[in-house]
C-alpha cells in the first residue's frame, strides 16, 4: 500500500518519526512538501533532471538520442536514461551533446585546471585503441571465437606494455 503525503495527495517518499515529549509522531510527506517543511532539500540537482532540462532546451532531441559511441556502442539516449556513460571515449563521441550539460552541471566551466597525472600516461589515441580492442574481445568471447579472443588479448597486452 502506498502512503499518501500528509499535506497533499502525492505519494509520500519521506517518512519521519519524531519523538516529542514521549509521544511518537509519524510524518509522511512527498518530496516537495518535505522540502517545503525544511526536512529535506533538493539542492543536489540529479543528473536525470539536468538531462531532462537540457532536452527541453535542445529542441529536436531525437537526433541527439541516436548519437552513438563507436567504441562502447552506447547511445546518447541510453546515457540519458541511466545518467552513466559507457566508456572514456564517450566524452569525445558525445562532446556536442555533453558540453551544454557540463556547462550547467559544472558551474559554467569546462576546462580542467587541476591535477595532471605525473606519469605522462598513455595518449588518448592509445587509450581508445585499447578500448576498441577490448570491445572486440568482449564480442569474440560472447560468440565463443576463442582463437580470435586469444589474438586480441595478445594485441591488448602488447599495446599496454608499449
Amino acid at each position, binding site marked *: 500500500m502506498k502512503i499518501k503525503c500528509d499535506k497533499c495527495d502525492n505519494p509520500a517518499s519521506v517518512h519521519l518519526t519524531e519523538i516529542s515529549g514521549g509521544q511518537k509522531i509519524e510524518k509522511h510527506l512527498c518530496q516537495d512538501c518535505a522540502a517545503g517543511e525544511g526536512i529535506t532539500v533538493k539542492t543536489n540537482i540529479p543528473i536525470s533532471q539536468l538531462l531532462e532540462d537540457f532536452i527541453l532546451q535542445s529542441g529536436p532531441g531525437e537526433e541527439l538520442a541516436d548519437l552513438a559511441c563507436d567504441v562502447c556502442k552506447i547511445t546518447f539516449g541510453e546515457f540519458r536514461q541511466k545518467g552513466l556513460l559507457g566508456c572514456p571515449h564517450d566524452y569525445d563521441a558525445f562532446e556536442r551533446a555533453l558540453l551544454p550539460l*557540463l556547462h550547467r552541471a559544472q558551474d559554467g566551466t569546462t576546462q580542467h585546471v587541476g591535477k595532471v597525472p605525473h606519469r605522462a600516461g598513455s595518449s588518448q589515441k592509445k587509450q581508445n585503441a585499447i578500448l576498441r580492442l577490448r570491445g572486440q574481445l568482449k564480442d569474440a568471447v560472447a560468440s565463443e571465437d576463442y582463437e580470435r579472443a586469444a589474438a586480441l588479448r595478445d594485441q591488448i597486452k602488447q599495446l599496454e606494455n608499449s
Partner: protein
Amino acid sequence: MRLTDLTKQAGEWLRGAGPMHDVVISSRVRLARNLAGMPFLSRCSQDQQRELEARLRKELLEVGLAKEVLYVDLAAASDLDRQLLVERHLISRQHAEAGHPRGVAVSGTETVAIMVNEEDHLRIQVLRSGLQLEEAAQEIDRIDDLLEERLDFSFHTRYGYLTACPTNVGTGLRVSVLLHLPALKMTGEIEKFFRAAQDMRLAVRGLYGEGTEATGDFFQLSNQTTLGRTEEQIVSDFLHQTVPRFIEYEQKARQALLDRRSVAIDDKVCRALSLLRSARLISSEETMYLLSLVRMGVNLGRVTDVDLAAINELFLLTQPAHLQRIRNGPMSPQERAEARAKFIRARLGTG
C-alpha cells in the same frame, strides 16, 4: 586484520576530537578514478568486472596504503558484514546492495577506504574527525600518487580525470563534512541552512550519504563542482568560506537557546539522558534522537558526566548490524530493541 576487529570500537573519525568537533563530526574527501583503456563499470562484461576487481585488489594490497590494510570481497561477504561497512561509512549503500564483483580496501584506523567497482573503478576516500579537510586532502593526494605509479588512469587534457557520471569529471574530487545541527533544527532555522546551501551550489545529504534523506539532526554537506577549479581551490573555498558560515549559524542558534530557553534546554537534555539510562526497549530512531540531544548537552557544557567520544561511539554501535555483530548472531527487531537498551545502559554507567 579481520572485519570483526573493526566492530569493537568506532573508527578514528568518530573519536569526537579535531577542530570544531562540537559541530563538525567528521571531514571526508573522495576521488573518483577509472583505469584507462577499460569501459566504465556499467558497460563492462562480467569477465571485465572480475578482471578489474582482481587487478585492483592486488594493487591495493601491495601498494602500501597503510600499516594494516583489510580488503573485503563484497560479493562473497554476508549481508550483515556489508551492512556493518555501511554503518561505519566505509562503503555506500549502493555498493553494499550491488550484485557484481566488487570490494573495499580499508586501512587499520579506518581513515582510508577505497571502493573497487562502485560507480567508478575506484572511489578513494579519506576520513578525519572534526574539521580536518586539508589534512585529508593531503593524504588522498599521496594515495592517488602511489596508485598512479602502478595504474594508468583515464585522463583527458580538456576534461581531466574521466568519470562514469559527468558530474564528477575533472578533479573527481568531492569534499564533505558531516554536521551536527540540533539547535538549527530546534529553532526552526534549518531552512536557512538549506537555502544558503542551495545558493552556494552545495549538496545536502543524510547521514549515510548519497540517496539518503537529510532527516534528523545530521547533515552531510558537499561541493558539487568538480571541473574548472584546482583541488586546492575546491578544498580551500569549502574549508575557509563555506563550512565556517554553517558552523556559525549553528553556534549562534545554540547560544540563543541558552540565553533564552536554558531551563527548557536542560530539561530536554536531562530527560534524554535519563531515558537512555533507564530504557529497557529502545529503537534505533529514538536512540539517534536522544543521543543527538545529549551530544548537544555535552557540547554546551550542560552535561559533564558523559564523554563525547562515548556518545559518538554509541551512535555507531547501536546500529542494527553492529548490535548483531556484538551479540554474534541475527536478532529480531524486538530483540535488538532490548539488546540496544541494555548496551546503552552499560555504556552510560547504569548497568
